[in-house]
């Protein structure tokens, strides 16, 4: 297993380099934007000397490379600046809002994966039949629907017309007061279930369904398409033909061999799919007034709140990089060729 350990070390180093690169890009982007952060920090009715003082305070008068050094140092140290808008440390705000976004993205991903992957597998094994073609069209349709539009439609239909699901938000205000959820992880579904708070659990569930479904549409389409093509590739592989030529029973070939061969590319599918889930979550949050990073970012953009914009960009990238790292390591564990 020595080569596995070597691979892990190599990937970790790569990840660190990528994170440094990401922070550099983000830093650069923030600095070249047109508005004056100092003026924004102080507010609209500021006087000239207040702006100047703010500039010195924020370190904006130092040379660029010094700013970058301070930036990296602070980043590692956990000081991600103060939000111009909320006046709270950015890192604190992010930690507050992150669980909501993660919960939404994960639920959406679970829906997408549990529909998408099996459908892709079926489509691949029944290639070129009616089932295959119709699932392909459905998948492409799912990929073509604008996530923000489907969210609105879901709101109109289920919340307005049918009235069975709430329009927006994460929890009913009423319930939040009468049956508050004791926060452990920040994931309402888990926390309420674990503390036996079924009233809140049901309510949280009702609130998360519409946004999660809106989110899941794109990822489902993606999962179906990618699983189908990887399964077709796997089923076509010469080594399966050899296995058949040696008389191995079809069940064994499908479920022992082909499945293991398919896991690695499927993990890749998961990685890409989750990346899109996180992206889509931002759009969905805006529509459903979901108190997550998306809404936070949205407000930050309106208020030209730099530290927040930078912070969220970095955290989003971190999450993706981390998820991909985990998936890559899982792949390396299963398929020895990856470790080369």
């Amino acid at each position: 297993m020595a080569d596995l350990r070597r691979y892990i070390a190599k990937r970790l180093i790569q990840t660190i380099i990528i994170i440094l690169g990401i922070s550099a890009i983000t830093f650069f982007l923030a600095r070249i934007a047109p508005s004056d952060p100092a003026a924004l920090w102080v507010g609209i009715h500021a006087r000239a000397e207040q702006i100047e003082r703010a500039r010195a305070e924020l370190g904006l008068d130092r040379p660029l490379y010094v700013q970058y050094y301070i930036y990296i140092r602070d980043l590692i140290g956990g000081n991600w600046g103060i939000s111009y808008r909320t006046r709270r440390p950015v890192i604190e705000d992010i930690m507050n809002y992150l669980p909501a976004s993660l919960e939404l993205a994960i639920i959406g991903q679970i829906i997408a994966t549990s529909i998408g992957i099996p459908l892709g597998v079926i489509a691949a094994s029944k290639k070129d039949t009616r089932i295959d073609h119709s699932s392909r069209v459905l998948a492409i349709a799912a990929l073509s629907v604008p996530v923000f539009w489907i969210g609105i439609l879901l709101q109109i239909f289920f919340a307005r017309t049918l009235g069975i699901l709430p329009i927006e938000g994460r929890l009913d205000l009423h319930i939040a007061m009468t049956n508050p959820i004791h926060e452990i992880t920040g994931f309402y579904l888990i926390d309420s279930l674990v503390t036996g708070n079924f009233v809140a659990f049901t309510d949280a569930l009702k609130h998360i369904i519409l946004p999660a479904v809106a989110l899941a549409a794109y990822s489902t389409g993606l999962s179906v398409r990618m699983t189908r093509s990887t399964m077709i590739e796997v089923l076509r592989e010469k080594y399966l033909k050899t296995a058949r030529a040696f008389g191995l029973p079809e069940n064994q070939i499908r479920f022992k061999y082909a499945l293991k061969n398919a896991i690695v590319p499927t993990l890749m599918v998961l990685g890409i799919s989750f990346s899109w889930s996180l992206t889509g979550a931002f759009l969905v949050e805006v529509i459903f007034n979901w108190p997550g990073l998306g809404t936070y970012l949205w407000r930050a953009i309106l208020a030209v709140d730099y530290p927040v914009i930078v912070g969220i960009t970095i955290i989003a990238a971190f999450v993706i990089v981390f998820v991909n790292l985990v998936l890559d390591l899982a792949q390396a564990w299963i398929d020895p060729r990856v470790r080369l």
Partner: protein
Amino acid sequence: MTSPLLSVEDLRVHFDTYEGVVKALDGVGFEILDGEMFGLVGETGCGKTITALSIIRLIPENGRIIEGKILFRTENLLDRTEEEMRRLRGGKISMIFQDPTVSLNPVFTVGQQITDVIAVHQHVERKEAAERAVEAFKLVALADPEKTLKLYPHELSGGMQQRVIIAMALSSNPDMLIADEPTSSVDVTIQAQLLKRLLEIKSSENLAILLITHNMGIVAETCDKVGVMYAGNVVEMGAMRGVLKNPLHPYTKGLLEAIPKPQTRAKRLPIVKGTIPDLINRPRGCAFHPRCPYTMEICRDEKPATVEIDQDKCVACHLVKR
């Protein structure tokens, strides 16, 4: 006369493709006896691989066996059920393919793969199967068999991978081994070693081998009998020495002339000019006639029937009927 191990009669196989129905095999027939090495030779596209796949019934999905008989001992394999065929594959008849580097599953060790095959055919527990696997590895002269079991395919060289595959094929003591271009993907020295080993196994185990190749030179050196295929037909078949000394079909002559010999001091190697015919719209007469240096009027109109010259020899050519 002993009854043949394998007897293929008038085999016709068609493929449905985008451009039309490809009539890949147009009446293939030959016989292989126990312990005999039979070389099926011909250029790319002549249908030799399809023939082999038809024997174990693993032709691609868009292929159909239209007609013919494949008699293994006395049973017609084409009448057998899929489950019966599955038990045959790797059991009584084994087939190995050209490129060993893509024939082994990369995410399992070679030990796991050969143990699976042994366990399926010999109905033994995994531990017993592992021991037999080691025996099989010794048979193909793989160094350090116990250690090799734990390796992944990509950790082995091409030659070693091919030995593993041969070991898997022979592990259940088959009556016949079908080898489809087993040496084309390895370099010449390994090629020689593998062939030598195969010949040794053939005599020690009385194994019949159907060797499929485009390389007439290898066939000439190793096979007892040879069948020359062209465009889905066997155009000449007979004992190796007889065919070498006295080739009857013009195509056979061309193939033999194309083998580079040390004595030859000509500047260019003689080749058989032209390409294989369109298999979708097959020409009416003899499939070879456009390229044949001895072609006659009748060759264009009538397809030559297979004529038995003597006990072992037959040929399909209008020249011979006379």
